[in-house]
């Protein structure tokens, strides 16, 4: 299939981003340290934000962008929270 319209390009790109995101699962499962897993999940989250934005344009559903923005915020919060929690097993907060 060769995409002809902009919408189809975005949908195809979203599918490819999903494949790249799935690659992250390997590191999320295998990563030797907690930080490796956290990093993989963080990259996965960034990819999810991009996928949401691509779907918003591809499916013409602009409110997906709302969710993408919230997801980006929670993704950042998760990275900061867990990385802080791993220091001395949550001894500092």
């Amino acid at each position, binding site marked *: 299939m060769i995409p002809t319209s902009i919408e189809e390009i975005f949908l195809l790109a979203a599918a490819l981003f999903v494949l790249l995101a799935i690659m992250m699962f390997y590191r999320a499962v295998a990563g030797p340290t907690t930080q490796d897993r956290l990093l993989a999940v963080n990259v996965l989250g960034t990819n999810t*934000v991009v996928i949401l934005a691509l779907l918003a344009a591809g499916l013409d559903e602009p409110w997906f962008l709302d969710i993408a923005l919230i997801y980006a915020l929670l*993704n950042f919060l998760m990275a900061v929270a867990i990385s802080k929690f791993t220091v001395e097993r949550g001894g500092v907060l």
Partner: protein
Amino acid sequence: MIDAIPMGEQLRFAAIVILVVAGLFFTFVSAVGVLRLPDIYARAHTASQADTLGAGLALAAVALALGWQHATVYTVLLLFFVFITNPTAAHAIARSAAESGITPVTSEPTATDGGERADDGPADSSPNTDGEDGSTGGGGSA
């Protein structure tokens, strides 16, 4: 088919395709980096950088495709947000790795003076040893 589309639209179409492909490429680099690189610090490089650029390019493509409408504002906000928070998140992760005492894999440094600050070392790395002790029962938290 394509001849019917005006010139400006064709240029925009081409720009969107280029941006999306470049975004996919850098995200791919980031994914490969996270899978291939040897330790957490090196992985954090690609996770924060190639991925941020990949996401940025893809979001720029979305913003370009949406054109002048209200949703574009959200896309641009998302772009800025990703660019501010992603490096900070990578820093937080790398710092947490340093705090919990993970030593980076380093190749032999090519430069000269490595041991100059050796006397400063112990105080700097004291959180590391604390982190190590925590698992074996050194309850210094009282």
